[in-house]
C-alpha cells in the first residue's frame, strides 16, 4: 500500500512536471494524493486531462467552452490521436472551474482570443502520448515481450509478431502503477489518423434533437426565477418604486432593491415579469442625459485633433509625407456593435451557507469563480461552477456581470435562482465593440511605391477595465491590434493612439481590434493603390516581399476568384487580407450595386493559412461564420444611443444578416507546416474592407463609414 501511494505521489509529481513546463509558475496546482486515490481505484489517470476507464470508455476533459467553434470535438481529437484511441471510445467531459483546468499559457480558465487549439495542442498531445507509452509498457510486461515489438491501434496494444491484442481497458490497472514518462515521443505528422480529418462534431446530435443543455435550459429543484428591472440611462438610480404591487401578484416571492436595479423573483418567469411590469420604478436622470449618436460622433471626430500616444514608428513619416509625389488623407468612422448572442444572458445560482453551485454559459470560468468567491466569501473548493453549452459567445460571455447578479439574488432568497435577461436587457446592457475612428495619411513616390503611412486611431480602451495591467504606456493593445503589427513593408510608418472615454462600456467582440483596424487598413491600402494607379492585388503583393504567408493567401484567394475576369456594369470585385490570432486570411468579395443603391454581396472567396489543420470542416465553418458575422456588421449593424442610454432594443432595430442576404462562400484552406493558428475569429476582419473595395470598383464611391450606405 505504501509503495503504491509512493508510486502515485511520484507519478503525480512527474505528471505535474510534464505539464508545469507549459504554464506560469503561479497558475498550476496538483491534485492531492487523496483525490487521486479516490479516482484511480477504477480509472487510470496519467494526468488530469484524460481517464481511460476499465469499461473501455475514455473520458477526455475539455477545459474550454463550446460556443459553436467546435472545441468539444477538436480538442479531444488531439488526445485521441496521440493515444491511438478508437474515436468511438471517446467521452467528452466538461471540466469544472478549478486550478487544474487553467489554460497553461494564460494561467486562467477561459475561452477567447481564438486560443483553444493554440494553447492546448502541446499539453494534450503530451497527455495522450504519455498514456500510450504507459499502455505499451504494461502490455509488454503482461505478454512478456519487448516494448519495441508492440504497437497501438484503435484502442488496443498489438504484439506485432504474435498478433496478440489487448484492449486498453485490460491494461489500465497495470499501467496506472507505472511512472509517467516525462517526455513521451509524439507521433510523426504523416502517421496522423484523426488530426487533419473532418470528424463529425460530438455536440451536433444533441443540438439537432433539442437536447443540448444551454444556460437557459437548466432546471434545479425548488428553483425560483429572477428577472431584473434596469434603468434606461447610464448612471441612473432608483428614486421610488412600488414593491407591494409586485408582491401582490400571486407567485411573486421577492422584490430586491439593488439601488441601481431591482430583482423580482417568482415561481415562474411569466409571473416574475408580471411583477416587474407593475413596479412603476421612477429613475433619476442618468449621468450623461444628453448622450446620443450625434454627441458621440462629435466626441470621436474631435478627438482626432488630439495628440496621440506613439504605438509604432519606423523611419521618418512626416518628412516622407512632405516629400511624397502624391498623398491622400482619409477619415474612417465605425460604430458601437452589439454581440447579440442568440441566447440572452442568464445564470442559475444556488448559494448556501457553506457552498455554492453555479450553472452558466460562460467563456470565463476563472472570472466566474472569482466573482462567486467575492460575493459569498466561500473558499474555491466550496464553489462548483458548471459550464453549460453557450448559445453564442463572441466575447460577451467573457463578462461575469450576470453571474454576480444571480449570486447576489440567490444569497438573498436562499434558494436556487435562474436569472433570465430579456433580449431588450441583453441589447441595452452589453459591453459593446467600441466605436472608433481613424485618420490615415499616405504617400507614394513617382514610381507608385508606398513610402509613408501615418495612422491615428481614436478608440475607447477595453483593457483599461478588464486587464488594466496590459495597458502599457497608455496604449490599449486591442485598439492598435492590426496596426502595430501591420504586415505591409512601408519604409516610413507612424501609428498613434488617442484614448477616448465615454459612458458606453466596451468589451471583447469577435476579433476585437482587428474587427475595425482591418477595415481601415485594407480600405486605405486600396485608396493608395488607386492613387498610384496600380492593381489593388499587385500593389499589396509588392508590399509583402518578406511576408510569404500573407502573400500566398492573397494569391490563392485572387486565383480562385478569377481576379482579372471581367464583371458586368454595376458589379465590382474587392480584395483584403489580415493576420489575426496567428492565422492569415484573404478574401475576395463580389458585389453588385442596384439602382436603389442597395449593396448585394453575391460571392466571397476565402483563403486561410491557419498552420497545421486539426479539423478542416470546422475551419471552413468558422471561416463562413466569421464572414457572415463580418458582413452583418459591415452592412447592417450599429447600436443607437439617445437620451443618455441605449436606444437599440431588439432585432427590429438591430437586425442581423439573414439567410436571403448571404452570398455564396468558398473557403480554401492552405496546407502549412506552421503551428496551428486560431480559427474562431480570423475569418471576420477581411470581409468588410473586401466589400468596401468591391463597392468602390462597382461605383467609384469610397465607403469610409460603417455600416455601409451609398
Amino acid at each position, binding site marked *: 500500500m505504501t509503495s503504491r501511494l509512493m508510486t502515485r505521489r511520484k507519478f503525480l509529481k512527474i505528471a505535474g512536471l510534464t505539464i508545469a513546463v507549459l504554464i506560469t509558475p503561479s497558475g498550476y496546482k496538483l491534485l492531492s494524493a487523496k483525490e487521486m486515490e479516490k479516482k484511480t481505484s477504477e480509472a487510470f489517470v496519467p494526468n488530469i486531462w484524460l481517464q481511460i476507464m476499465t469499461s473501455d470508455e475514455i473520458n477526455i476533459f475539455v477545459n474550454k467552452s463550446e460556443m*459553436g467553434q467546435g472545441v468539444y470535438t477538436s480538442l479531444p481529437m488531439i488526445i485521441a490521436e496521440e493515444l491511438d484511441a478508437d474515436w468511438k471510445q471517446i467521452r467528452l467531459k466538461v471540466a469544472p472551474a478549478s486550478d487544474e483546468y487553467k489554460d497553461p499559457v494564460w494561467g486562467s480558465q477561459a475561452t477567447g482570443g481564438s486560443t483553444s487549439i493554440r494553447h492546448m495542442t502541446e499539453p494534450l498531445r503530451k497527455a495522450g502520448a504519455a498514456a500510450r507509452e504507459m499502455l505499451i509498457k504494461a502490455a509488454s510486461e503482461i505478454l512478456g515481450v519487448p516494448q519495441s515489438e508492440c504497437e497501438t491501434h484503435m484502442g488496443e496494444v498489438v504484439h506485432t509478431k504474435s498478433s496478440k491484442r489487448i484492449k486498453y481497458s485490460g491494461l489500465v490497472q497495470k499501467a496506472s502503477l507505472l511512472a509517467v514518462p516525462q517526455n513521451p515521443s509524439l507521433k510523426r505528422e504523416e502517421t496522423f489518423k484523426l488530426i487533419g480529418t473532418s470528424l463529425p462534431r460530438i455536440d451536433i*446530435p444533441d443540438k439537432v434533437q433539442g437536447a443540448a443543455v444551454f444556460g437557459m435550459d437548466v432546471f434545479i429543484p425548488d428553483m425560483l426565477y429572477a428577472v431584473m428591472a434596469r434603468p434606461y440611462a447610464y448612471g441612473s438610480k432608483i428614486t421610488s418604486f412600488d414593491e407591494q404591487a409586485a408582491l401582490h401578484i400571486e407567485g411573486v416571492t421577492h422584490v430586491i432593491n439593488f439601488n441601481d436595479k431591482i430583482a423580482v423573483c417568482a415561481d415562474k418567469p411569466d409571473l416574475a415579469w408580471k411583477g416587474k411590469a407593475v413596479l412603476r420604478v421612477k429613475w433619476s436622470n442618468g449621468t450623461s442625459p444628453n448622450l446620443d449618436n450625434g454627441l458621440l460622433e462629435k466626441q470621436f471626430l474631435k478627438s482626432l485633433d488630439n495628440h496621440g500616444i506613439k504605438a509604432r514608428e519606423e523611419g521618418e513619416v512626416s518628412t516622407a509625407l512632405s516629400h511624397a509625389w502624391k498623398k491622400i488623407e482619409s477619415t474612417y468612422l465605425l460604430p458601437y456593435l452589439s454581440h447579440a448572442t442568440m441566447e440572452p444572458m442568464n445564470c442559475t445560482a444556488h448559494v448556501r451557507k457553506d457552498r455554492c453551485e453555479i450553472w452558466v454559459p460562460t467563456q470565463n470560468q476563472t472570472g466566474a469563480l472569482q466573482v462567486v468567491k467575492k460575493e459569498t466569501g466561500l473558499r474555491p473548493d466550496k464553489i462548483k461552477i458548471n459550464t453549460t453549452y453557450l448559445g453564442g459567445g463572441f466575447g460577451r460571455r467573457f463578462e461575469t456581470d450576470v453571474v454576480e447578479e444571480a449570486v447576489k439574488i440567490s444569497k438573498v432568497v436562499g434558494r436556487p435562482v435562474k436569472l433570465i435577461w430579456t433580449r431588450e436587457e441583453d441589447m441595452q446592457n452589453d459591453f459593446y465593440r467600441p466605436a472608433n475612428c481613424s485618420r490615415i495619411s499616405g504617400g507614394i513616390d513617382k514610381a507608385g511605391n508606398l513610402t509613408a503611412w501615418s495612422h491615428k486611431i481614436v478608440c475607447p480602451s477595453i483593457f483599461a477595465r478588464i486587464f488594466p495591467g496590459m495597458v502599457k504606456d497608455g496604449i490599449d493593445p486591442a485598439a492598435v491590434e492590426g496596426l502595430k503589427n501591420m504586415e505591409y513593408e512601408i519604409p516610413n510608418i507612424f501609428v498613434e493612439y488617442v484614448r477616448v472615454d465615454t459612458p458606453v462600456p466596451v468589451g471583447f467582440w469577435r476579433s476585437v481590434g482587428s474587427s475595425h483596424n482591418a477595415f481601415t487598413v485594407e480600405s486605405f491600402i486600396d485608396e493608395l493603390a488607386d492613387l498610384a494607379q496600380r492593381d489593388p492585388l499587385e500593389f499589396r503583393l509588392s508590399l509583402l516581399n518578406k511576408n510569404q504567408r500573407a502573400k500566398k493567401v492573397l494569391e490563392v484567394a485572387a486565383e480562385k476568384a478569377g481576379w482579372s475576369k471581367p464583371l458586368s456594369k454595376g458589379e465590382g470585385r474587392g480584395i483584403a487580407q489580415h493576420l489575426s490570432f496567428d492565422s492569415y486570411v484573404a478574401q475576395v468579395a463580389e458585389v453588385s450595386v442596384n439602382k436603389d443603391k442597395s449593396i448585394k454581396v453575391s460571392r466571397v472567396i476565402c483563403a486561410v493559412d491557419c498552420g497545421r489543420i486539426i479539423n478542416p470542416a470546422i475551419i471552413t465553418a468558422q471561416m463562413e461564420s466569421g464572414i457572415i458575422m463580418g458582413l*452583418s456588421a459591415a452592412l447592417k449593424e450599429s447600436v443607437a444611443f439617445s437620451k443618455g442610454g441605449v436606444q437599440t432594443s*431588439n432585432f427590429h432595430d438591430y437586425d442581423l444578416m439573414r*439567410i436571403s442576404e448571404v452570398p455564396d462562400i468558398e473557403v480554401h484552406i492552405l496546407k502549412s507546416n506552421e503551428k496551428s493558428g486560431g480559427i474562431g475569429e480570423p475569418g471576420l476582419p477581411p470581409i468588410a474592407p473586401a466589400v468596401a473595395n468591391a463597392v468602390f470598383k462597382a461605383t467609384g464611391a469610397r465607403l469610409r463609414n460603417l455600416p455601409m450606405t451609398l
Partner: protein
Amino acid sequence: MISLLVNGKRYKLDITPDVPLLWVIREHLKLAGTKYGCGIGMCGCCTIHINGKAKRSCQITVGQAKGKKITTIEGLSASHPLKKAWVEEQVPQCGYCQPGQIMQAAELLAEHRNPSDEKIMKTMEGNLCRCGTYPHIKRAIKLAAQGGKK
C-alpha cells in the same frame, strides 16, 4: 385549468391564459428544446408547429393554443429527414437557434417536396443565426428534400 396537447401528450395546467406559449412549453413543461431569442417574433428561435403550421411560440398565448395540436423539436421524430440532414451537413455551431430552424424547415418540406432556392430563402428568412450557419442550413434542407441522397 388549461389543457394542452403537446407532442401527443396531454397536460393540464393551472395557469392564466395570457402567458406566452413559449414560456409554458419551456419552463412549465420543461421541453427546453424550444428557445427564447427575442420575444417579439423577429428571430424564430421559438418556432414550433401548431396544427402542422410553423408558428412563433412567443407570439401565441397558451389560451390561444388550447385544444390545438402542438409539436416541438422534441416531438419531431428523432429520425426525421431534416434531423438526419442537419447531422449529415454538420449544420449547428452554437446550436441555440437550430431547433427553430429545423421546425421552420419541417413545415416547408411538409408543404413543398422539392422547394426552390427562392422558396427556401423566403421561408427561412425569419430565422436568425448569429453563427452564420445559413449555407449549411440551405444544403441540409436540399439534402432532406432529395431524400437524404446527395
